[in-house]
């Protein structure tokens, strides 16, 4: 069965410093992995996705994530945080059998300090 764990419920960084949001997954198959962002009082927006084409995935707004099979990780990074990055971030794994359910992590709230 698939599962996903976001290792930090809250992350605080200063503006202009790097961002690292950690995600570990469990999957019996080659997974599809996603990162979504949710700004306050908004819906969820796709940041990036991994589909086995390349292990380093670039997304919108300068975010990227690296798929590491040996570590079962899919951490999200950004070289320099901006105030507008403050939001809730969700790591998601999609099951590739059965009902194709999307498994959501519990979310990481990113706070950016001026």
């Amino acid at each position, binding site marked *: 069965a698939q599962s996903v764990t976001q290792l930090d419920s809250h992350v605080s960084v200063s503006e202009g410093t790097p961002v690292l949001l950690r995600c570990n997954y469990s999957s019996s198959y080659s997974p599809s992995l996603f990162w979504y962002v949710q700004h306050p009082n908004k*819906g969820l927006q796709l940041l990036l996705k991994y589909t*086995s084409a390349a292990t380093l995935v670039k997304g919108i707004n300068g975010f990227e994530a690296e798929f590491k099979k040996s570590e079962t990780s899919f951490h999200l990074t950004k070289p320099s945080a901006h105030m507008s990055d403050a939001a809730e971030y969700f790591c998601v794994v999609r099951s590739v059998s059965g*009902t*194709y359910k*999307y498994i959501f992590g*519990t*979310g990481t709230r990113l706070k950016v300090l001026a």
Partner: protein
Amino acid sequence: DTAVSQTPKYLVTQMGNDKSIKCEQNLGHDTMYWYKQDSKKFLKIMFSYNNKELIINETVPNRFSPKSPDKAHLNLHINSLELGDSAVYFCASSHSTGQGNEQFFGPGTRLTVL
């Protein structure tokens, strides 16, 4: 053009009332979902329909009844509303097959039960 739309955006009602939320997608997807997001931002899958057929039905009180009149629409009817039903409800859609098919989310419906 709005990809996934929900109505209403806000819903305030009294305990014991019955209410409906509507969702429509114009992306040509064959699968639609309802999620509940609580105050701690946890996203919980409730239902999923594929080509109008119910494929995911999580442990949800039977006061909640989804209905999919066609592939582009998925509605949620809630009977005898309770205080604990207060949450943000998100509709989403995706293609069912193929790797890396992300979900597209609606803007959410904030339900407040008084």
